[in-house]
């Protein structure tokens, strides 16, 4: 498929996913998807000769489509947010969304490393580049953690522990805040192992 079409599909899906996630109060997705979209368009905006590999560009659109699917499922059925569908005090919806955030952040990391290699910021092996991509993904997870905490604080949840007893509300707030880093820590490690076999993806097309 043409790169231009791939970018258009990703942009459209990205914007729709930001809207559906905001509707469900999942604002940290906007942060992850904005980073992914900026990185997707970076070679065009910088007027670079080489572009990302087609496979990487196609992969970048998958998390957008997945989050739209999960948001639709949640809106229509609510099966991921019920009291029976909780894991560690947090609804399954947030765990699912965190997994998709982890995937998107990792692909963004791969794009960032490709970009840096092309701009000669990094002169390291492709294997190390995949590991840098994982680190970038985990840094984005830290960003999500902060956004989730601020969002919950603005929604009226308590984020402070003022007494000697641990308020039960904090179990939920802490769990939700930690859901993205927790899932990303495991998922991105697994993706790193997987992508070490596909490490040519950190090279731009035409840069052999």
């Amino acid at each position: 498929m043409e790169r231009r079409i791939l970018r258009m599909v990703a942009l459209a899906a990205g914007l729709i996913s930001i809207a559906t996630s905001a509707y469900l109060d999942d604002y940290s997705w906007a942060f992850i998807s904005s980073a992914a979209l900026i990185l997707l368009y970076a070679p065009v905006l910088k007027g670079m000769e080489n572009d990302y590999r087609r496979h990487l560009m196609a992969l970048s659109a998958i998390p957008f489509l997945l989050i739209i699917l999960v948001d639709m499922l949640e809106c229509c059925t609510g099966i991921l947010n019920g009291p029976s569908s909780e894991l560690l005090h947090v609804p399954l919806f947030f765990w699912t969304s965190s997994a998709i955030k982890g995937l998107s952040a990792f692909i963004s990391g791969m794009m960032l490393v490709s970009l840096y290699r092309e701009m000669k910021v990094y002169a390291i092996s492709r294997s190390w580049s995949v590991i840098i991509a994982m680190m970038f993904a985990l840094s984005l997870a830290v960003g999500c953690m902060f956004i989730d905490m601020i969002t919950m604080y603005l929604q009226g949840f308590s984020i402070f522990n003022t007494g000697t007893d641990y308020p039960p509300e904090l179990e939920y707030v802490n769990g939700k805040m930690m859901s993205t880093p927790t899932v990303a820590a495991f998922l991105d490690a697994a993706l790193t192992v997987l992508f070490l076999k596909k490490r040519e993806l950190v090279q731009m097309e035409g840069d052999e």
Partner: protein
Amino acid sequence: MRFGLDDFACIIMCLTNIMIGILELSDDNVDLYGSYTCMVCGIVCLIPSLLKQFGLVRLNLIFIITIVVALTMHSLGVLMSGYDVLEDYDMVTHTLSSILVSMCVWMTLCCYNVYNSSSEFSGRSMMITIMLVMATFSVYWEVFEYLLDTATNTHSQYSPFDTAKDTMFNMLGSFITILYSGFKLRRMTMKELVDSFELSPRLIHFIDRRHRLF
């Protein structure tokens, strides 16, 4: 290897920590966890001196002082409830620890830059890599604490705000290291800096082997 001020600092702090740990053991209301923490921290204080004496690597004095101060503050914080009584105590220990870890990362990257021809870090990529590595360590540390709390029904994370604060101070530590590294590399070249570590030939050989891990 010649015995110097750095070895002296390591041994003094090692003995101080171990003695505090032993004294605690003789107390009526003994805090076993605090006592063992002091002893373990005391032993760890010796590591820089041992590394130097075995000819593996020579760390600079500022780095060694940061190590022993961080370890002693942690052990005293555990033993004398500094973490519970003093509100900002963990802020200081988190910052000091992250300075130490990020300095290790920085020194490792410098060694790779000098001895491994397949890796080349410019000032900018060095800065980005230190920040990324520290963010990764912060995430793994907080996830470890979260999972430990969940498994054992404890609250070492204390509160969501505390978790965010810890992460912020971890990043502050790496920022301080980046500033220090910039200052240091203005006064000497990277080669001179790495030479001052007096790395053992075996370590140099380990770094030099290309793509050894992958």
